[in-house]
């Protein structure tokens, strides 16, 4: 039984790791089409990552070991979170360590390692990116926790599998709508999208995530970009499983898989649409935006009380 669980964990991690660049590519393509552009092909990120992984890194002589190690920690955390994600295409298996707090703290650890590395090279852009990332993180993390807890309350458990099963049992309701709205805002912030950050910008002075990784090149850059895509897919999977609970993807039936894929695509399309419609807000207005997510989560908890 234990070995089976480890196998499932491994398969999930592998599956999401492989699929992540495709989802990132799909979002990019959607955005391009919405903006009247042709955009790169959906598989472009695979080629980019392959290119970076085959190249040497240029490493600033002023950096310490932290700079060299951070991408690996960041990647490991993302793959770990992928393994724990609520991707239930198998029936009857409850994976032992899949705790909500485990996933959240893997995210925190990955962010911490990257922020530390961003300061390491001592360049102005890295420092600015790192300080902004931590500033936003301090606001995102409580909101993320609160939103996840709306589901955990109902499941009486913080085990992600239990939560998923609980959500699958009783879909709909006001609580879910509030929680979904809250999580979508967090999704935008966590994946570094407009209006919080701009993934496509070339303006160094406005960068958050891109600013942090500006010093990286070659295979370390490849790992970071890949890991960011994985983290994004994990968040989308969490969103579509826990916050879009209709027709849950428990079990491996064809229609369930189709629904699951459909929801992922819907979320990806939603991200592209919201990025096209909005513009980046002033850095110091971001707290207000994220406070809305916190408030919605609170409302979801209240609405969820029977």
């Amino acid at each position, binding site marked *: 039984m234990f070995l089976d669980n480890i196998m499932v964990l491994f398969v999930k991690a592998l599956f999401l790791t492989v699929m992540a660049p495709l989802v990132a590519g799909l979002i990019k393509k959607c955005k391009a089409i919405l*903006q*009247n552009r042709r955009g790169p092909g959906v598989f472009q990120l695979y080629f980019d990552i392959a290119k970076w992984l085959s190249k040497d890194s240029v490493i600033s002589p002023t950096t310490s070991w932290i700079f060299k190690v951070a991408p690996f920690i960041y990647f490991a955390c993302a793959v770990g979170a992928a393994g724990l994600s609520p991707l239930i295409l198998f029936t009857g298996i409850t994976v032992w360590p899949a705790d909500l707090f485990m996933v959240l703290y893997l995210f925190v650890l990955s962010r911490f390692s990257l922020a530390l590395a961003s300061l390491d090279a001592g360049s102005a852009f890295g420092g600015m990116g790192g300080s902004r990332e931590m500033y936003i993180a301090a606001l995102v993390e409580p909101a993320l926790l609160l939103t996840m807890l709306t589901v955990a309350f109902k499941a009486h458990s913080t085990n992600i599998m239990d939560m998923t099963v609980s959500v699958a049992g009783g879909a709909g309701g006001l609580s879910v709508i509030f929680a979904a709205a809250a999580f979508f805002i967090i999704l935008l912030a966590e994946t570094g999208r407009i209006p919080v950050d701009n993934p496509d910008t070339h*303006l160094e002075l406005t960068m958050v995530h891109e600013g942090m990784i500006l010093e990286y090149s070659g295979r370390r850059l490849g790992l970071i970009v890949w890991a960011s895509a994985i983290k994004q897919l994990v968040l989308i999977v969490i969103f579509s499983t826990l916050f879009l609970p209709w027709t849950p993807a428990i079990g491996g039936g064809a229609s369930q898989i189709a629904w699951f894929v459909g929801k992922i695509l819907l979320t990806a399309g939603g991200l592209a649409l919201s990025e*096209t419609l*909005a*513009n*980046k*807000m*002033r850095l110091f207005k971001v707290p207000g935006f994220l406070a809305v997510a916190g408030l919605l989560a609170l409302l979801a908890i209240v609405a969820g009380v029977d």
Partner: protein
Amino acid sequence: MIKNYTVSAKNLRAAANACYSKSKHGLLAMFANDERQIHGKFAIYCLFDGRNPEEMLSVKALVDDQEAPEYPSLTPIIPAAAWFEREIHDLFGLTALENKDLRPLVLHENWPQGLYPMRKDFAVEAVVPEAHKDFPLAHAHGEGVFEVPVGPIHAGIIEPGHFRFSQAGETTFRLDAKLFFTHRGIEKIVEGQTIEQALFSAERICGACSVSHALSFCQTVESISKAIVPERANVIRVIVAELERLYNHIGDVGNLCAGLGFSVGTSHGARLKEHLMRLNDAVTGNRFLRGMIIPGGVRYDLSGGLIEEIYKTLKRTESDFREVVGLLEENDQFLDRVNTTGILPFQAAKELGVVGVAARASGVDYDLRRDKPYSGYAWITCNVPFYRSGDVAARLWVRVDETLESIRIVRQMLERIVLTQTDLAVEIPPLEPYKAGIGWSESARGGNIHWLMTGKDNTIYRYFVRSASYANWPALPVAVPGNIIPDFPLINKSFELCYACLDR
């Protein structure tokens, strides 16, 4: 009509002050000229605009470098002179007394001390050894204060410029820029060239204001030769000048959206600009409208088919542009970013001699097309939109209003063109040597002022260009402090400053 006043070096300040008080917009340009071959002395020229539409005031001060290569600084009474005096110090080695800030501007740390490239005894083909001087930039000290160096190589497709931000957290409180990285020495190269040759260099000072620079240059020549440009040529000149303003303004509105990640606006801006540039290509055979304007008139005629095409493109552009502007005006998220960002106060705009869109957004009601009409602008009423708030939004709305006004002007001119004779250009007679002329035109960014002195055999003795960006760059370090550093790209884009116009 130019009113010339010649004074000795020590009387420069008094004479300049008298002209300054009589002028409408203040100091337009200030530059030196090595006239030792003519009368043994250097000359410092200060150009002011008079109150009458036709009038220009030119103060010439003679500086004898055998006695002392110096003249009294104008900066204490006219702040706009600051950059000019630094440039004269770099290029001619003439010192402005009492100017406390004569740090290098044009020549960087790799240029040897004591070598003055604009003096006549400096040969164009001279090999210059590399030096390792200092290039001090303004900065700040204090606890928690740090500096952010940006550039000269940027991540986008932008020309080189180095910015030094002094930061307290996200807030910028000081900014200095190191520019002139790719200075081409056009003013030096054209010395000794014929007017026809020099036109090509003048037209290529900047891509985005090719027409304006060519127009200013040609008007300089025409003012020296007193040539009368045919009516049809003047009409066509106005049309291409306005087409240039149109594609620039619409492109700039789109670029501003890129500065804050509003992709709908960016896409529309790029699309509309492309339509206009294709029209440019159809009209002149060049997407930047090059080759149209020549001394004495224009090179090509506008046929009936082209006129139809201009009408059609304008119609489509106008309705689409209004729609895009509507999207911006009703978007609170967008307005939140542009309102109250990067304010350039009226006083600063006035004293620094800021021109063009930036000036009109800060309450300076000045436009060369209306206040110093040239070419065909005297025949039309030119409405000049202006705003007082001086922020990014004001500069955006000035562009929007001017775009619509431009469309109106082109339509008026298209109606007029069918009534004109078919003459396109007059012959420019050989020019009298050592005569000076001034030409000006309002580009999308502001006034481009050209000054030219003829040499022997129809050649150029000295050519000086005061581009709009040259006047506006010093305003950026005034508008940025107090804003947060992520807003800098937005503020910078709203000024739309040109590097090539400095690197002339």
